[in-house]
């Protein structure tokens, strides 16, 4: 199934990607090629097959709940593009 311009803009918004017009066209065409190729998975009837989300046979890995050293506030903020005291500073939410 082909993905149209409207869907493309919707998916880009979901992914928080601002795509300029030129990129939108190129990506749209490539995306359709890729989706056509991966749609091959639907050829198989796998109604009785359970899905795999994790390739190892491990469940519920527990650790003791013991406090351990973690990053200091200074370390956590070391790569901040902009900081304000002990917080990451960001522009305000729009309307």
């Amino acid at each position: 199934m082909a993905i149209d311009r409207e869907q493309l803009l919707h998916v880009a918004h979901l992914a928080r990607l601002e795509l300029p017009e030129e990129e939108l066209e190129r990506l749209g065409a490539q995306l359709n090629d890729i989706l056509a190729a991966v749609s091959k998975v639907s050829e198989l009837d796998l109604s009785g097959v359970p899905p795999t989300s994790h390739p190892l046979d491990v469940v519920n890995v527990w650790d003791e709940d013991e406090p351990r050293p973690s990053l200091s506030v200074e370390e956590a903020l070391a790569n901040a593009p902009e900081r304000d005291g002990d917080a990451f500073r960001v522009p305000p939410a729009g309307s």
Partner: protein
Amino acid sequence: MIDTLRLTAEDAIGLVERGEVSSAELHQAYVAAIAERDPELHAYLRVLEEPNGPSIPIALKDVIGTKDVETTAGSRILEGYVPVYDSTVAARCKARGLSLLGKTNTDEFAMGSSTENSAYGPTHNPWDPSRVPGGSGGGSAAAVSAGLAPWALGSDTGGSIKQPSALCGNVGLRPTYGTVSRYGIVAFASSLDQVGPVARTVRDCALLYSIIAGRDHCDSTTVELPHAVELPEAEDLKGLRVGVPKEFNEHEAIEPGVRDAVQRAIELCRELGAEVGECSLPHAVEYGMPCYYLIAPAEASSNLARYDGVRYGHRAAAADRLEMYERTREEGFGDEPKRRIMVGTYALSAGYYDAYYGQAQKVRTLLIREHAEQFERFDVLVSPTSPSVAFELGARTANPLAMYLSDLLTIPSCLAGLPGLNVPCGLSEGLPVGLQLIGPQFSENTLFRIGHALENAIGFDGVPARWR
């Protein structure tokens, strides 16, 4: 004079331990080799000129977080990002006294098969600089083959250790899923990502694996190894059963020269005493690629959501927050991450989830079962690692699907969480051909044993012909 082109890690450790060469001299010898050959290859994104450990040097792929050393994952969005903590694998290397030599080039976020998707420019193949080194770990593979590091670490999601090792002519292991910690690694697709060694010999590869493997409390997907890593010594393959899956060995994409070299290696297995038999994995190759290119992008779209300009990395100037997110990501990500984020977001979105991601997860179960069935009859499955030898730079960049096919033969076992070893098995058109050995989970020791015996029998010279 230290010949870094031929020195194995094992021999280098011997030189240092016997006091014949100091670790500082060794580090300097590699820095000198990098100064001489890396301007042409661009295997490194940054080099640490000063020795920083008492043993031999190591190079780390730039998706591996290193405290106080910039880690970009080949992306503009992480330009200038300096981790405040070490990844577990970097810490384990440090604890063994290894000296960090530098960070190697990678396709952006390890997404690619040629290292051409790096935002910092491509790496070139040491055998022929007009060709790619494979990817995503082309930097680590090229560095080892060019004598710019005795060994290195890579990361592998769908073939990013094995395929570059094949194209550069060295040994690369993608370990069993869960045996090596991903703590502090830039995440791509978490149900697939594994860190693993790249080395000149199988024994070096096994030694490095023993340094990094094992349970880590900071990564709950890790497990203890069921048995200790053994450095291989045996020269024969007696008692081993080698399966030759026809779909992996007769695919039309496999170049004749690659097929010939692999056939000779399979013949050698027989001569070394192994029992060799044909087998079939009917869905693995045909459905592995489409399955992978749904699961990996889906997980990537989720993992890469963290690059929003808030806490680290690039931030675009914007008046409001939504604009900041969208513009930061538009400016910071290159084409391939954008494609995968879009495919993944679409495949996970309402109304499409079951048909795409859900169905791909079921295909994954099918592939796990297909492999398990063959491991009742065989200890190992063999095939080419890559259908082709190293291709020309630019040959596949215009067509993402052509690039994706580079991983046709490495992907299925990655989806099944199985370990895979690449061992060089000859040349075609003057370029290395890699043999892929796939075993059941936790069978690394068997893979090392077979790889080591074959390596000795084949006698492949890993030094690129133009530098001999």
